[in-house]
């Protein structure tokens, strides 16, 4: 009888689905529909002592995939892994494994196992007992028992352990003391200890970090093979981009608690989504440019053909050019940029050269060596120019302290605390988007500006204004502002951060 209403409900739902037009594809799938994502992370935020480590992060992980969380230290990748393992609880958000929410389930009840960074093998147990630890606790379904489950027999445990040790190539090591093993062997024991429990998802927290290069390469291939043999989902955390690209089906690039890009290794390398990903993955030349129109990009005073379109007219963009994509030839006038080789280093199979052209230091890789001081031409073909939307997180200007609590930049003098700086100091001024206020009348603001665009960001508008001194201001505000309107700009000095300006060091940054 209980089943009936549920059945009815399901029927009704299918009806609703059928009635939907093709246009409704964007709607969220019905909760009952089984997605092939084994792990679903939804809106996870984690705050430690007031520091946001993960910021409203969502991610789906497909069953059976080898997924790598990649990012610099402190980007939140390990925290994300620990949230899945259950060692941390999220500040907000939910994680689902096979559709079931797990954030309130303790780690010992989750169908995941972890290979720890420093292996965390129990020093008081030998190899066999370390691997047996999880198996002794495992309950398997057994309908003949009253409870419906039973524990594994000693023989079953021993068989499983021997199989796992064989898989990691440590057949005869059961009796060995874990402290007597080398780093690589301990690593294998840690993997055996985790996979012997037959988890649905294996979590690996920088497991190869402590190994030397040669051993690491070997283990990368072995892990990859293990993943293919076992067929379970691997989530692998690393800061080594090469490792991530070698091993993964999918790479998740993270920075400052936010996912920057989720893609296959090749796409991550060939089509980085933004300047961070481009910079983090492999060597690259990152420049600022302006998209003049579709297929036309201007940078370093040249206008070049590219293969991208769909940007706003004259939108400021980031450009990535991989060093191996630049064609270098002897003498001037052969390509787009004339330059001079500054340094040249042999890297085993190619030469890596720094070439100064149009005041920018290009990194170039080539099979042919051009010596330092040699005059060269650089040619950049259209499909090697990768164009990415600029991501701005803060307004940044170069200013000058003009008095106590007064800093001048963008053609106006703004009030803000100047503790620690003297009058006449050159400073970098960081103005958060929410520290700027626009006024209807230009006279109410400190400076005047023209509205370039208003973008709706879900709960607020991001407005861009253009000052008379050719600077842009980005403002987060509740109101929409009409393009080309003349407005006044005010700044809440309390929210502004000042930093000493070092012309040599900060030149390239400030130019952006």
């Amino acid at each position: 009888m209980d089943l009936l209403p549920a059945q009815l409900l399901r029927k009704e739902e299918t009806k609703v689905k059928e009635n939907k037009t093709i246009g409704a594809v964007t709607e969220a799938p019905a909760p009952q529909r089984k997605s092939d994502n084994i792990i679903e992370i939804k809106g996870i935020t984690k705050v430690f002592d007031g520091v946001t480590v993960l910021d409203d992060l969502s991610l789906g992980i497909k069953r059976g995939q080898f997924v790598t969380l990649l990012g610099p230290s402190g980007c939140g990748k390990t925290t994300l892994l620990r949230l899945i393992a259950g060692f941390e609880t999220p500040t907000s958000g939910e994680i689902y494994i096979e559709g079931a929410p797990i954030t309130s389930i303790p780690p010992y009840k989750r169908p995941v196992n972890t290979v720890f960074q420093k292996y965390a093998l129990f020093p008081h147990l030998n190899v066999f007992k370390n691997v047996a630890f999880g198996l002794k606790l495992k309950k398997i379904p057994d309908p003949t028992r009253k409870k419906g489950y039973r524990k594994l027999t000693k023989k079953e445990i021993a068989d499983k352990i021997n199989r796992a040790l064989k898989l990691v190539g440590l057949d005869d090591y059961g009796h060995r003391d874990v402290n007597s093993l080398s780093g690589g062997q301990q690593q294998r024991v840690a993997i055996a200890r985790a996979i012997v429990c037959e988890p649905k998802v294996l979590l690996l927290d920088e497991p190869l970090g402590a190994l030397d290069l040669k051993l690491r390469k070997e283990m990368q291939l072995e892990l990859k093979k293990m993943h293919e043999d076992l067929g379970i989902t691997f989530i692998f955390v690393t800061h080594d981009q090469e490792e991530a690209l070698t091993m993964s089906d999918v790479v998740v690039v993270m920075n400052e608690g936010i996912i920057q890009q989720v893609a296959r290794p090749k796409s991550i390398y060939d089509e980085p989504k933004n300047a961070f990903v481009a910079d983090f993955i492999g060597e690259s030349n990152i420049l600022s440019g302006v998209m003049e129109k579709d297929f036309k990009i201007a940078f370093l005073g040249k206008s070049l053909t590219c293969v991208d379109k769909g940007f706003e007219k004259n939108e400021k963009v980031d450009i990535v050019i991989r060093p191996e994509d630049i064609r270098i030839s002897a003498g001037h006038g052969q390509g787009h940029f004339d330059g001079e080789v500054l340094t040249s280093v042999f890297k085993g199979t190619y030469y890596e050269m720094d070439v100064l052209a149009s005041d920018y230091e290009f990194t170039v890789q080539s099979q042919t060596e051009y010596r330092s001081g040699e005059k060269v031409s650089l040619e950049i073909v259209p499909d090697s120019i990768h164009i990415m939307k600029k991501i701005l997180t803060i307004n940044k200007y170069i200013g000058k302290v003009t008095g106590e609590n007064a800093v001048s930049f963008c053609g106006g003098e703004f009030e803000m605390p100047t503790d620690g700086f003297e009058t006449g100091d050159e400073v970098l001024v960081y103005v958060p988007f929410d520290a700027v206020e626009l006024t209807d009348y230009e006279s109410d603001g400190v400076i005047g500006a023209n509205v370039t665009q208003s973008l709706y960001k879900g709960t607020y508008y991001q407005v861009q204004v253009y000052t008379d001194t050719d600077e842009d201001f980005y403002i987060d505000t509740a109101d929409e502002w009409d393009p080309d309107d003349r407005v006044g700009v005010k700044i809440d000095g309390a929210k502004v951060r000042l930093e000493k300006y070092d012309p040599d060091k900060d030149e390239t940054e400030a130019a952006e």
Partner: protein
Amino acid sequence: MKRKAKVFRPTVFAFPYLAVTLVFVIVPLLLILVYAFRGQDGNFSLENFRLIFCGDGVNDAKDFLVRPLLKTLGIAAVSTAICLLIAYPVAYVLSSQPFRKMTVIALLFVVPMWINFMLRIFALKSILDTLGMENGYWMAVIGMVYDFFPYMLLPIYTVLANMDKSYVEASRDLGANPVRTFCKVTLPLSLPGIISGISMMFMPIFSSYAITGTMGDNHTSVIGSEIYSAFHYYEYGHGAALSFVLLIIVLFVVWLGNFLTRRSQKAPKGGKA
């Protein structure tokens, strides 16, 4: 090749301590040895040991060695056990979040160590007197527990606080609930701290007589008091022989403690499930 005439070795810094050890440790130990094996006529004799182990016809041998020794063992074991049972949970709580960073709190438990020993004992005794407790076995035990608590707490706290958190995480990750994790991982890994705490408490109690002297009664006469009274009444040979036997016992217990620690750290048991 010419050899350098003088090589400055850092070992010279150990010479002052060596001198102190020689005068105040080695020589007295030798004196004990001499007195223990010297008869009343001044010649070598085993008379003192015969008295301890066989009695002198008037007093039973038990009164000289066995009974005080058993009493000492008993009171040391009881006090140590009680102290361990109190100190372990305290150390566990102090070493866990959110106390981990607040070493000040751990320090509070150690501060009494900085107050004069006799002063502490008399203070505790007056408190217990006020509460209507009489001198005797349990008062002595309370005195021991109170006095040696920091010695038990600190080693356990240190081991727990320095224990890699990932062991506990690994255990929970592999399916062990908190109780099982404690029994199978935390407790075994903190064994060195426990053994060190026990030896730091058990040994001194063995030779102490101040606490039992102040808080006990004539039924709590420990071997330390025996030795004290022997020297007090100028029975140097008797006292020295007792000290010698005590020293052998203590050395054995220390060796046993070290042996167990090494075993628990290094050699896990056989490879079968």
